[in-house]
């Protein structure tokens, strides 16, 4: 069941109005296209929404579909704004286009790559998908900065993310290289970690640039 882009947008607006705005329905006047658009017919014929007295209401199946649409939208925002660094209006428009590509499991891949984000760049919650729940159940942290480790936790260095070449070289000289095992021994007042048989202390500015996987 693949919906048209407009249909998805209606579901998203409805979901935001109902789930986050606390309304019972959405006024189609608020959409940017005419109320007799074929997208409405598409949705009602699949029993995702119903229209009563000119207002749009969810059918139970539609609520789930809306949730997934909004999830795709917000994941797309995360990708464009955080990773590709396309911000502002431009980012918004591109995210709206991009979200429609995220079907057939592409959303799961993206969500995993982004390490199951909980909020969109505007701070609104991203409804968790199957993959998020599974990851949480398995306690799989994915790739996180060293600052997120608990003391005593051991992991593998995934990558170093820094624009500062000097920092990069400092860390590499300490043996912080992708593939090496690292143990976080203490997180406060400074981060202490062990690589091989050496221990190092670093501040949080350096620690947050080391990305590790459990």
């Amino acid at each position, binding site marked *: 069941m693949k919906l048209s882009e407009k249909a998805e947008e209606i579901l998203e607006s409805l979901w935001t109005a109902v789930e986050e705005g606390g309304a019972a329905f959405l006024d189609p006047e608020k959409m940017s296209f005419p109320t007799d658009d074929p997208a409405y017919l598409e949705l009602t014929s699949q029993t995702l929404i119903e229209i009563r007295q000119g207002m749009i209401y969810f059918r139970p199946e539609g609520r789930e579909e809306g949730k997934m649409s909004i999830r795709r939208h917000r994941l797309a925002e995360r990708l464009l704004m955080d990773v590709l660094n396309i911000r502002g209006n431009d980012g918004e428009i591109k995210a709206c286009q991009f979200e429609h590509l995220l079907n057939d499991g592409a959303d799961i891949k993206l969500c995993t790559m982004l390490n199951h984000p909980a909020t969109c760049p505007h701070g609104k919650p991203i409804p968790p998908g199957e993959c998020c729940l599974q990851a949480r159940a398995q306690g799989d942290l994915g790739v996180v900065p060293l600052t997120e480790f608990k003391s005593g936790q051991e992991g593998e260095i995934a990558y170093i993310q820094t624009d500062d070449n000097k920092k990069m070289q400092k860390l590499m000289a300490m043996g912080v290289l992708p593939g090496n095992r690292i143990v976080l021994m203490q997180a406060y007042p400074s981060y*202490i970690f062990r690589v091989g*048989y*050496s221990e190092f202390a670093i501040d949080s500015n350096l620690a947050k640039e080391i990305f590790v996987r459990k």
Partner: protein
Amino acid sequence: MASCCSKQTLSETELNGDVKRVALVGNPNVGKSVLFNALTGAYVTVSNYPGTSVEVARGSAVISGQQWEVIDTPGMYSIHTITEEERVAREILLHETPDVVVHVLDARNLERMLAMTIQLIEAGLPVILVVNIMDEAERMGLRIDLKLLQQKLGIPVIGAATARKRGIDEIRTALHDYRCACDQQRFEYSRLLERDISEVAGLMQGEYILSRRALALLLLQQDEEIIELARQREGDGYAPLTEKVREITFERRESFHLDLSIERKDMVRRIMHGVFSAPEKRVVTPAERLSNLAVRPLTGIPMLMIVLYFGLYQFVGVFGAGTVVDFIEKKFFVEIFNPWITGTVKSLIPWEILQELFVGEYGIITLGIRYAVGIILPIVATFFVFFSFLEDTGYFPRLALLVDRIFKYFGLTGRAVIPMVLGFGCDTMATMVTRTLETTRERVIATILLSLTIPCSAQLGVIISLLSKFPGALAVWSGCLLLLFIVVGLLSAKILPGEAPMFYMELPPMRMPQLGNVVTKTYTRMQWYFIEILPLFVLASVLLWLGKITGLFEKMVAAMTPVMASIGLPKETAVAFIFGFFRRDYGAAGLYELQTKGLMDARQLTVAAVTLTLFIPCIAQFLVMKKERGWKVAGAIGIFVSLLAFGSGYVLNRALLVTGLLS
């Protein structure tokens, strides 16, 4: 590689007057200086603290009849250098032609440190590898097949524990037998990287000491010094060379450094295979447990208090400044030595003016030597014993990480804890040590704080024994200093331009210090201190004597009297302040004299102590400041400190008068 053989020909060594040269290089805190001391019989300071050596030390040794010059270098992590000390170390490799380069590394961290061995071999240097600290590695259950390692690297490999004198003879033999590096292995990178290297190396025409292969890699890493070197040596060929380098670095801009490190890591892994084996389960030593206690705030802060209480207060303060000073100064000098020497001098020299020079009120012997030996020596000696001991345990890096968060507010990192603590011993020495801080900004802030608020041990000892007679005075004094430390620290972090520093530090294992090393280190520090101070004490005595007989001294005291009066002090204190120009501790000792004569009350004493502690650094410290920071910065700090010292004295005096505290 054969390149080194062609450069290190016999005739060249003969040109050097038949003295061969060996350079010791390696990561910080692997024992290069210990090896240096063992080979030369000289002494450079060693400790359990990364970055103890900040300068190149040179010494000589005779091995089987052959004269050698031994060069000890500051620690470096890689031949692609980042910090100032690393550059100093690499200078030796770049511009001098050592006959042998001894790479010293820590057996426990063989895997991490072998990357540099590969770089040295790749540079075509005549390398001998010393796998040091074997004793601790064995205790941890690590096994290292040195024979196999030697075979894989194609260079002599020696296992050692230099701190326990193990392996020294083998190193001597290896130096003596070293011929040339013909059978060194060539380490291959990936095809892509090899192509880049040969493209760059192919464009190089100039004569270099390091191999073109190594230099090509350094150029690709955008090493500024090497770029400059190439500019000088290449002439017309420089333009196409940089063009090529730019082209490749742009193509590989994403991750050149990382790719290179990972390739080297893989090389090392292949070498390590079969050479290194570790026990299944990590052995946790008692030292590691102690270390864990030292770095957790909950246990670390009480531990710091214990260290300070027993080390600084009980040992340096009560024992050094109390018991020992009482004994030497009062029992020996005042009761026995001074009357005797005065008698002797008076019977030998008939002229009263000359008598005054040696045994008068400000005489070289009765005042200069008495202060130096009777008061300053015991305090400084006990402090250096305390400091050296602590340094060798490996406690300081742990303290550094504990205070890093707080020091960040002052624009410093935890690293600055070493100069700060050392400052309580001798501010002059501490100002020199600020060199180990990474940025100029940190160095300037540390220099300001040292010259202003940190009292040196001599001052500290005298002031504590002075003020402890009046309850509350000590609290007011330390409160003032702490307040100024915080205010000035916060302000300079705000005002001085530059970005926030980053903190990183290797934590060496904690060890029980070796008595011998603590004693030697204390001894060399004392020696340095005395060479530095004794002439100044004598000079001060001479100047004061001159001032006295010419009447100039009286005039200076008279000139300073209004200043003294404005901060509520009797005019006699001017003498202490004039002494203070020569040495801060000397000034404090002058106050001691005044107090003994009963010339000052609690308020005056406290004001004088605070002003004097803050007041202009002693001449020696000022000279070091000038040397390290330059005239402009040193001058500015000097003026700032003097104004602040008298300003604070004035405010404190007013405050004490108004509140009636201490009266």
